[in-house]
């Protein structure tokens, strides 16, 4: 048995696998399959200051090796989360991360303040949601925007603060560095890539929001590249995600520079994925004589060109 424990921004995880925000609700549904303690952590569905109803349907489309979604941050609001979901989540034996999204910097700060007074373990700031009209990704696509909002939320947040980065940018390294400069304790990446599909009979986009966020196995190589680029620019830990569907993908993202990982879309085809990936990781580490999963982080050997 290799040691699967990892630490991100001072928070200890029993293994590197964290359920990615938006794919796992507030955990109750997948608790029907297994104890949530099989996961190192859970990042909650994106929470906003007030309740949001989300986008009109259809919200989902499929494409080869991936899917698109435009849920539009449907959630009951931060106060409801703190009252009804957080106490339950905290009893499940896993790290609880609150994913927050705002329309304005003031909203992010207000949520950070409220959550700082709870026993949530960590905050993940979503400045990369592509599916809402205001806020979200608009803060996440310029270095100045990322640094300013991170610094602002940092001042209102006493919890470890992770910033979730958008891949819809020209230079992910610059963006990662901006988050670090703003005072982030960790970064998580990558959120979905913006995409679109069209019904060729009706000539309408399949998704009612027109565009949606692309996720799933085909994102893996993009995530590997971007994590590698970010890893070279920042000292803070990277929580890597994008297209993980097997333990091999998990190893790749660790080697590219991840300290921990998030898995998401794979839940939809295989609810038991976290158990299978953890077992596979363990086997890989044992077979290669690696004592701790932390020894993988950033250990890819790039070609000298």
């Amino acid at each position, binding site marked *: 048995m290799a040691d699967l424990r990892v630490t991100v921004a001072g928070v200890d995880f029993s293994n590197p696998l964290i359920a990615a925000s*938006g*794919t*796992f*609700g507030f955990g109750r*549904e*997948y608790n*029907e*399959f297994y104890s949530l303690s099989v996961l190192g952590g859970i990042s909650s*569905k994106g929470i906003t200051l007030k309740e949001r*109803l*989300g*986008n*009109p*349907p*259809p*919200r*989902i*489309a*499929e494409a080869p*090796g*991936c*899917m698109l*979604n435009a*849920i539009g941050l*449907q959630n009951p609001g931060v106060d409801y989360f703190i009252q009804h979901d957080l106490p339950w989540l905290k009893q499940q034996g896993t790290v609880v991360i609150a994913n927050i999204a705002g329309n304005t910097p003031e909203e992010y700060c207000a949520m950070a303040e409220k959550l700082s007074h709870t026993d949530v373990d960590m905050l993940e700031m979503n400045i990369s949601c592509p599916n809402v009209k205001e806020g979200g990704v608009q803060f996440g696509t310029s270095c100045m925007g990322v640094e300013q909002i991170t610094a602002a939320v940092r001042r209102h947040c006493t919890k470890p603060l992770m910033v979730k980065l958008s891949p819809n940018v020209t230079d992910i390294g610059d963006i990662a560095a901006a988050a670090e400069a703003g005072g982030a304790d960790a970064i998580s990446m990558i959120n979905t890539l913006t995409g679109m599909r069209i019904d060729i009979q009706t000539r309408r986009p*399949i998704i009612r929001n027109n565009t949606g966020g692309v996720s*799933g*196995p085909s994102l893996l190589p993009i995530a590997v590249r971007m994590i590698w680029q970010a890893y070279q620019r920042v000292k803070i830990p990277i929580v890597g995600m994008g297209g993980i569907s097997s333990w091999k993908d998990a190893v790749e993202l660790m080697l590219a520079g991840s300290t921990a990982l998030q898995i998401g*879309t794979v*839940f*939809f*085809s*295989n*609810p*038991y994925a976290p158990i299978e990936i953890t077992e596979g990781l363990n086997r890989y580490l044992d077979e290669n004589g690696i004592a701790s999963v932390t020894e993988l982080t950033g250990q890819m050997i790039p070609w000298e060109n």
Partner: protein
Amino acid sequence: MKFDVKTCRIISKQNIAADTYDFTLFADKLAQLAQPGQFVHIQVPGKTLRRPISICDADKENGTLRIVFQIRGEGTEILSRLKPDDTMNILAPLGHGYEIKDTAKKVLLAGGGIGVPPLLYLAKQYGANATVLLGFRSKDFVILEQDFLQAGCRVIVATDDGTYGHHGMVTDCIDGLAFEEMFACGPEPMLKALAQVANRRGTPLQVSLEERMACGVGACLGCACKTKREETQDETYSHVCKDGPVFDYRKIVF
């Protein structure tokens, strides 16, 4: 356990109408959990998302589930090529099915096209107390008529083009029928017309909805449908996979 993932052997397969396939799977304990109106979420080799297919019938004793689906796209096309002794990986039984209160009551079941299959397992609970209205595009698409007759139900078939049964809509056939409750699954115009009947007669109506779906268990919030909150009547979004697929029609914003 409410539901689980299982790799099921295909026991039988039949092409029962144009582009329409009838599969029976050995689902063991999952068949015993199945309620009328629930669905199975099927993994499709090579696809990122599962495909939700309604449960047509369940044999608790033999542990089998029957599903009937039409080829709608690549996913269902791939599933339709599977053969007996191949396997299907299912996540089942999912969703909130039809609520059955009193099977001694006279009920009306109305199905349109590929909305017909989920009504069979329900009809079997009511037997001779069920009148079943089945609507199809044309004679080539008529399915499950014999199964409903074998369940002891009274069956009325309608086709859009008049090639079989009544020429017109299932809703044309309702006047003069006596029933205390209605159950439906089919295209939205049919459900809307039935909602008007329910309003006029003051009869309860449960409808089964369809939406593009991802997780199937209520976590991702992808399969939204517009509904009214019970307390305030404000509009909100419910989810077909967990809150439905079957809803009280008064909750739906058509």
